[in-house]
């Protein structure tokens, strides 16, 4: 390929623009290749911790404890998963987590949906105050709320009781659910509902036949995020539920490390994988829908 162009020589002048453009295209390709290498390096760093958890979970103990680690399990085993599930209180805490999450999802989404409709569809005095209340609570640090919630729940004998945790999760998650659902409802064109009402539908009829089906994906996405947050929540679950048999899965996992002097890393990683699986599956389903709720409207499309 010609790389040297001599502009002074008359016979190559016509070829100069082509050579230059070829050269530019090549430089662009080189630059893209360099960025791709950087991109792959970042990919490796970002994905590695998750990969390492799963990889360790399938490795036999001698591979885990070897001083030169093997990147992939050479003889994969399910033993750690069996061990983790056989540990005391695993199934109890799974059951508790599911109960708390189930009740919290149903209650918070139903109650928040009503408020979200009120906020999105009506103008009323005090609606600004309500919005400030909702977003303000979203910002409260959980560590700062541990003491008052614990003291009040203890007074009403709700500590060490799943109901106490359900109440707490409701408070954290209601504002979030109201805010995201409001966004979903406002995304539905008003004209659709109005058209139904002009055609003789009642307000309630328009609501159930037009609004509800359109907002269903939003309801699903919000439910999933409530599910994830409640499932992951640690500080209140740790404080409110004191008996091991009453705890949730995240608290159970947090006690896994350090139960014996030599930590069972394979078991810990298998247990971590088990805890993360439902979250990851659900998260992948709805990430696109919710990610922008907290920054919604920052840039106008």
């Amino acid at each position, binding site marked *: 390929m010609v790389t040297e162009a001599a502009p002074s020589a008359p016979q190559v002048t016509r070829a100069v623009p082509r050579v230059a453009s070829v050269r530019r295209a090549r430089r662009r390709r080189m630059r*893209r290749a360099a*960025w*791709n290498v950087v*991109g792959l390096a*970042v990919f490796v760093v*970002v*994905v590695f*911790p*998750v990969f*390492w*958890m799963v990889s*360790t979970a399938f490795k036999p103990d001698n591979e885990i404890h070897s*001083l030169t*680690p093997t990147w992939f399990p050479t003889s994969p085993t399910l033993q750690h998963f069996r061990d983790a599930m056989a540990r005391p209180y695993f199934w109890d805490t799974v059951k508790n987590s599911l109960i708390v999450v189930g009740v919290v999802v149903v209650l918070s989404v139903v*109650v928040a949906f*009503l*408020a979200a409709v*009120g*906020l999105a569809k*009506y103008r009323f005095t005090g609606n600004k105050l*309500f*919005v400030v*209340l909702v*977003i*303000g*609570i979203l*910002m409260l*640090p959980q*560590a*700062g709320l*541990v*003491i008052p919630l614990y*003291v*009040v729940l*203890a*007074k009403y004998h709700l500590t060490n009781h799943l109901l106490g945790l359900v*109440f707490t999760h409701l*408070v954290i998650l209601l504002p979030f659910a109201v805010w995201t659902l409001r966004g979903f409802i406002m995304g539905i064109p008003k004209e659709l509902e109005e058209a139904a009402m*002009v055609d003789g539908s009642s307000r309630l009829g328009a609501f159930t036949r037009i609004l509800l089906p359109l907002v269903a994906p939003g309801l699903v996405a919000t439910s999933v995020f409530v599910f994830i947050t409640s499932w*992951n929540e*640690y*500080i209140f679950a740790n404080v409110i539920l004191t008996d091991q048999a009453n705890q949730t899965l*995240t608290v159970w996992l*947090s006690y*896994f490390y350090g139960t014996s002097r030599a930590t069972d890393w394979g078991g*810990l990683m298998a*247990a971590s994988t088990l*805890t*993360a699986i439902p979250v990851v599956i659900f*998260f*992948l389903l709805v*990430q696109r829908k919710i*990610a*922008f709720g*907290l*920054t919604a*409207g*920052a*840039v106008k*499309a």
Partner: protein
Amino acid sequence: MTVAAEATAHRSRRRPRSKRIAQASVPYLLILPVVVVITAILGYPLYKLVVLSFQQYGLAELIQAATSGAPAPWVGFDNYSSVLHDEVFWQVLLRTVIFTVANVALTIGLGTLIAFLLIRVSTWVRVPLTAALVLAWSMPAVVAVQIWLWMTNFENGVLNYVLTELHVGDYTGHDWYGSTFSKLAMVTLLIVWGAIPFVTITVYAGLAQVPRELVEAAEIDGAGPVRVFRDVTFPILKPIFLILTSLSIIWDFGVFTQPYLLIGSSAVDTTNYLMGVYVFIEGYAHSDFGRGAAISLLMLLIISVLSVFYVRRMVKMGEAS
């Protein structure tokens, strides 16, 4: 169409008053359940928090309250003056501020760089990289802590192995939890790793809205990538950056799960407390609820001040849309 609209308007004007009042109360009835739940479960504890901060309230008082309901003794501003005269409080505050600045700067800085990387790479790199970011984002905090404990373990943690292999130095058997700085650096790594995806994906989505012509025009005028960012891209993305930064500040200032579990409940002490851990240990773990309440209120006060910007912004946007 217009006739029908007029007819409905006319009809509504003739509606009896009782019906109009019923109509006006609909939004209030809709938000009522949320207000009731929040007031009952959060309002009362918050009121109680203020009361507690003026009381001497320990384990004895807690048991008393649950059995006989006898009130705890009042101590005036003793809890507050005890906290404000405690050197530890000011040390923790300073440490938390530095920690927050470092974490927010790293999260926003690296997150933005990766967002710019995403537009420059080929699709076959972008797709797995985005998937990796979403995967990291979805990891529960407690799970991420366990992974970190394993990777940074001094005996056969992979971090020591990789650093030694890369000839960064001899890290065989290196204890990453030996000094305060090292402990908090590990917590920072964990938090930044978990927080970058949110920043990257939000900025990346924002970048799609920067008009291409503007960037190209600036490039033709001879602006380098840094100038293009400073004078074209950043001003357009500024609202996004402001929101991401204020959210990150609020989250990092009050962080609890990562430092508490990674440093370890038996190793957290006055030399490595962050605000969230401090309030938890002093108030709850030591069962000094009165003093803990005073610290909680001070912490809530700081966070409220930090949140004002974000809340105002969101309310304004809520009105605009």
